[in-house]
């Protein structure tokens, strides 16, 4: 596991080091007003598996849930299919080690095995402010983007007009899901797919949505850094976050690790 930082300023989101362990991260997350912490990571170009990541990013956008596969087996599945049997075998193993270490870290937040997925396509729905939600009592999500120019944006819950947001999502959520699916399946440009919805497209580009009380009140995770945020559950509030439109052309490779438990 590479633990070096090297990503510059944290842009206002509290940092936590990998070495401090999941207990320290959990402590920060439980008392964080915005519900997110930053986990510094080395820049992609300093990682020993950068060539593998760049190679994957040349392929059409994809998404894979690891399910019960360990990272090594899941990456083998992806790499063999997209890059050819046995391609980047050494780099793949190093990459899998780092993913496994981060998954163990995330799992340590709640004392349970974390689930992992990777994806390399731009999901426009992620540019809309939202909280992730699960049924378990305690849950956190670790996001590790590789090769993305912009980090995740976060705002505080009191910056969201809850009834307006509920009305917005009643209308927009199914439309956003449909848009995400079409982008993944066809690779079509978001701008073309939503040509008939210019106001909604403009909001995704600017990040200024009508349910925000103060549109400029947001924090940014440093580009290349990982982050951990609270997931909304029946007993804990979630972190309001969105992806940046700046990632539209370079969505990068995103490692998404979710840990949830009823007992933590």
């Amino acid at each position: 596991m590479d633990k070096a930082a090297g990503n510059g300023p944290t842009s206002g989101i509290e940092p936590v080091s990998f070495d401090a362990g999941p207990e320290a991260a959990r402590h920060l997350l439980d008392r964080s007003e915005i519900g997110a912490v930053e986990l510094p990571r080395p820049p992609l170009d300093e990682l020993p598996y950068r060539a593998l990541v760049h190679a994957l990013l040349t392929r059409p956008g994809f998404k894979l849930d690891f399910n019960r596969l360990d990272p090594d087996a899941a990456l083998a599945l992806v790499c063999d299919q997209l890059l050819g049997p046995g391609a980047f075998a050494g780099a793949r193993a190093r990459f899998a080690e780092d993913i496994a270490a981060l998954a163990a870290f995330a799992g340590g937040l709640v004392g349970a095995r974390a689930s992992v997925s990777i994806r390399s396509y731009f999901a426009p729905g992620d540019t809309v402010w939202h909280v992730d939600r699960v049924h378990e009592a305690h849950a956190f999500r670790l996001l590790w983007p590789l090769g993305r120019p912009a980090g995740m944006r976060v705002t505080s819950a009191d910056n969201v007009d809850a009834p307006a947001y509920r009305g917005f999502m009643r209308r927009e959520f199914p439309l956003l899901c449909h848009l995400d699916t079409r982008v993944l399946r066809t690779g079509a440009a978001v701008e073309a797919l939503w040509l008939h919805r210019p106001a909604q497209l403009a909001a995704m580009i600017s990040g200024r949505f009508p349910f925000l009380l103060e549109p400029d009140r947001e924090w940014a995770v440093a580009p290349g850094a990982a982050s951990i945020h609270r997931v909304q559950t029946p007993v804990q509030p979630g972190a309001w976050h969105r992806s940046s439109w700046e990632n539209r052309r370079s969505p990068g490779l995103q490692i998404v690790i979710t840990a949830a438990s009823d007992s933590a």
Partner: protein
Amino acid sequence: MRLRPLGRTGLSVSELSLHVSAGEDPHETAATIALALERGMNAVTIAGDAAAADQLASALAQGSRHRDLLVIARASSLVPFDLPSPHVPAGRAYPGRHLRAEVESLLSRLGVERLALLQLHAWCSEWLGEGDWLETLGELRDEGKIAGFGVSLFDHDVDAALELVAGGAIDAVQLMYNVFDQGAAASLLPLCGAHRVGVVVRSPLYYGALTPAFDHAAFADDDWRHSYFFDEHRRETMARVGRLTPLVAPHERSVTDMALRFSLSHPAVSTVAVGTHRRVHLEANLRALEMGPLETGRRAALEQHKWLC
């Protein structure tokens, strides 16, 4: 009033049906239902909760011509949905015992022997293989307590029902279909037509936006539309309604007539449900429907105005 087949139920339903909701003046509701029946309408739609059922029961108790009224009800979920939502298993949202209890409660409250249709209030495609809702609704149909069953789709989520309709598991779907949301016309409506699955259209007037009154409507704080049509969406909707005005024919009252006729224009549609609480509005809607489906040219022109799909 023209009738259309209600999917595979064997029933024929009037092109226009009346949506009855709780909280309205029961006398006016009763008078509106009486007028609807007098003009040849034969169907009402309601949510399956007790308040809506009692509103309808109260209205029916004041009339005498409801023997052949078709009641199309939506079964309430045991779990409220707040989008985006994590997956709720069908067995938690719609356990069979809950569906059976709700049907029997509706039959008892309304004093009818059979519901024309029971539709799950919301639908997620993952539910196709989950829970015992399908088995239970099939049993209720076999027992003659419902003539058919189906699902009601989240707004703008029509593709969620494609597999369900193609698989032949249901008799009817309920969905939003209007000038602004024409998404169902791409795949689902043709599929319903091919599989003889009935279609109950809701929100043909987009929650009242496609009416002249929307410009100055003041929604009460406890009306969910108060936050739904928050300022920006309200402004955009009003602007888009304004752009429809040049397409209104001289013999039509307003965009309302055109919008109602549009929703009925697709041959797969069985009935269009409108929440009309005043007789004067019902009279006007009936006059609009007497004009029949919208002409092909205007339907094509309205293609340019869809934006909620």
